[in-house]
């Protein structure tokens, strides 16, 4: 095939690609947000109910940890299909970007919970002991000590989570989800348009780099330990 025809083809798809970028950002940002709304409290609970935590509760810790592990073991592409009835129940459809958010959140929040758990565990036990010695109630230890002290690490975790979710979101293209993934599959793969394929991959790489860079900069700016 002639390169100029390919290029013309590519420009023909430019508006779709632009919409794809916006859809991808929409899915990723909203999914990350919901994953954190659910995953952050679970991560904190997993950490504080641990046997060395500030509020040990073995039963809760084991049960919650088990559920998180199960959800984390299911491959995203399987989960995507398996929970379609649930997705329809929540958003009324199983295709498009909004429909993709549901499996993305269900798949990402256990991952986020584990990331949060490990970030919070990094907080020096001496600092927690000092807070306890100053008469801090358990809930305030979480809000005033654990989360603020773990903030830089939580931000790093968020950057990792957002890129992982971005990776997942592209898979949704196979089942009628939106975004760059769908464009890569529909135009690049099914119609065999290499240029569109390459363009979407490059765009995805740029978006990942962007999120990563923002994450690193935000960490550097917040972390008061480095100076």
């Amino acid at each position, binding site marked *: 095939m002639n390169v100029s025809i390919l290029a013309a083809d590519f420009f023909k798809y430019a508006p779709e690609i632009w919409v794809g970028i916006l859809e991808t950002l929409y899915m990723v940002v909203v999914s990350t947000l919901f994953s954190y709304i659910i995953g952050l409290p679970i991560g904190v609970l997993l950490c504080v109910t641990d046997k060395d935590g500030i509020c040990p509760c073995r039963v809760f810790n084991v049960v919650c940890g088990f559920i998180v592990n199960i959800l984390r073991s299911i491959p995203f592409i399987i989960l995507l299909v398996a929970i379609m009835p649930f997705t329809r129940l929540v958003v009324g459809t199983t295709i498009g970007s909004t429909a993709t958010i549901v499996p993305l959140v269900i798949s990402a929040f256990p991952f986020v919970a584990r990331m949060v758990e490990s970030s919070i565990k990094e907080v*020096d036990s*001496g*600092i927690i002991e000092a*807070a306890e*010695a100053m*008469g801090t*109630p358990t809930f305030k230890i979480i809000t*005033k000590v654990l989360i603020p*002290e773990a903030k830089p690490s939580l931000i790093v975790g968020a950057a990792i989570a957002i890129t992982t979710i971005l990776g997942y979101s592209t898979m949704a293209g196979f089942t009628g989800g939106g975004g760059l993934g769908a464009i890569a599959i529909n135009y690049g793969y099914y119609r065999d348009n290499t240029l569109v394929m390459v363009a979407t991959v490059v765009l995805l790489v740029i978006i990942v780099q962007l999120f990563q860079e923002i994450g690193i900069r935000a960490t550097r700016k917040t972390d*008061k330990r480095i100076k």
Partner: protein
Amino acid sequence: MSIIKIENLYKTFNTKNGDVNALKDINLDIEQGDIFGIIGLSGAGKSTLVRCMNFLEVPTSGNVIFENMNLGKLSKKELLKARQSMSMIFQGFNLMEQRNALKNVCYPLEIAGVKKAEAEKRARELLKIVGLEDREKSYPAQLSGGQKQRVAIARALATNPKVILCDEATSALDPTTTQSILELLKEINQKLQVTIIIITHEMSVIEKICNKVAVIDKSQIVECGFVKDIFINPKSEMARKLILPKDSIMRTLKTGSYFRIIFDSNFTHKPILSELILECNYPINLIYADSIEMLKDNAVGEMVIEKTGKKDIDEKIRQYLNSNNISFEEADK
């Protein structure tokens, strides 16, 4: 008046390798205004003991009575409130890394529900007391060890505590910084009437600042009393080992007969050796002498002199020491 009273306290940890008795039958009476030292080797149980005082560790049995409150009988809420009158400073400082010095000092006030502006005002006053008024914006990572401990002391003072518990507070610091931190603690004790409890394995810390000391060995208190008394006449083996490491001078002297003379502040300005020589009218050989300066204005010291070998003169030495109430011991090797 006693501020902290510990009665028949036991603490047992259940570990995989069976039960470990960390504390056995501890009884202590700490009075208001004391600078009370607790000394022992690592693993003796002293850190566990200090954590039982504010119930960071819950004793297996026994009572901790703080200001007439039995801590074991308080509700969780009352206990948290009581802890605000009982601050703690640590070997590792334990400052919040993401808060600057001012915000670290504000923390206990936030917990106590003090308004932000008021808390910051108080925090600034406290940073001034510890000599860090120009570092309020610095984060812990930007401060030296001594400065961090000063911030920790300011933080400990924020809620006007009755007691400050110090868990190896100077062990991570160099000697000069240790000295300045101890002086600061002493100043706080005198100016603010705060009772200070110091856990340490370093004899020098006890010497410099404490008025009373408890010696802890193998989970038990083996000796307890005024530093001065224990210094002059340590009864337990551990006290001898810790409090008079210079005792080893007697061990290094392999042969010969000696008097070891121990004197306290009453004899600081008395020319004991010269008087002895004049009294006996006989040359006396001085083997070893040392004095330990203390912040409490007491100079305690010891001196080893060789016996003359003449019974009547040695007897004269005994008489002189006895008549002047100077403690001594004899060693014949």
